[in-house]
């Protein structure tokens, strides 16, 4: 039993570690995105239409909404990476942060899928136990009638008989 608890504790710790790591990477990617946005606003200040097309005038504060905004930004800024490079943001820095955000989204999707799978498994288990319970209730009710004069048989079925 102690071994079982230790394993569960270890699994919990591992999940926490992975979750914290994901949060840290996410936070770092978001901060970098904000830096890139600041630079883009300077680098493209003479091209308001292009800057407007990046849709970065307001950055979303919602947990995952910013990632969509960021991926769209990196996609649109890519052909103009040379202009960002003039402001000390190299093309590979843009690509790396785009990849980091894509990876964070993949991890999030996997986590959600795992959670949904676990919920489905629990639901399937509960339904199967419910069906078995219903069957057993009917079995016991029938056996009480069929063996009303044979309490030993009822006890063999695990039914408590009043003496």
């Amino acid at each position, binding site marked *: 039993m102690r071994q079982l608890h230790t394993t569960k504790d270890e699994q919990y710790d591992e999940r926490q570690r992975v979750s914290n790591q994901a949060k840290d990477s996410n936070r770092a990617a978001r901060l970098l995105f904000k830096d890139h946005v600041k630079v883009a606003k300077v680098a493209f200040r003479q091209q308001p239409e292009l800057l407007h097309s990046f849709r970065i005038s307001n950055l979303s504060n919602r947990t995952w909404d910013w990632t969509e905004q960021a991926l769209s930004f990196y996609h649109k800024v890519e052909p103009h990476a040379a202009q960002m490079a003039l402001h000390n943001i190299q093309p590979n820095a843009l690509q790396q942060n785009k990849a980091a955000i894509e990876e964070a989204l993949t991890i999030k999707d996997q986590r959600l899928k795992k959670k949904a799978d676990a919920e489905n*498994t*629990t639901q*399937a*288990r*509960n339904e*199967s*136990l419910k*069906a*078995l*319970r219903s*069957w*057993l209730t*009917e*079995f*016991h009710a*029938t*056996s009480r*009638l*069929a*063996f009303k004069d044979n309490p030993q*048989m009822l006890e*063999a*079925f*695990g039914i408590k008989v009043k003496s």
Partner: protein
Amino acid sequence: MLKSSIASLFESSRLAIYHTTEDAEIQKQMSNYGFTVKRIQEGKTLRDNAAVAHHQR
């Protein structure tokens, strides 16, 4: 459902299936009251399915 009540459910259903499949007299008596061999077999399938689902968690 509590672990103890799940264990009790599995054990009670095991006893029910075991006695009715092993003893023709018991089977006949249950059948006379409407609990046919087919119903016993259904119980066995339900128990097998529940055991698989329970251990998958």
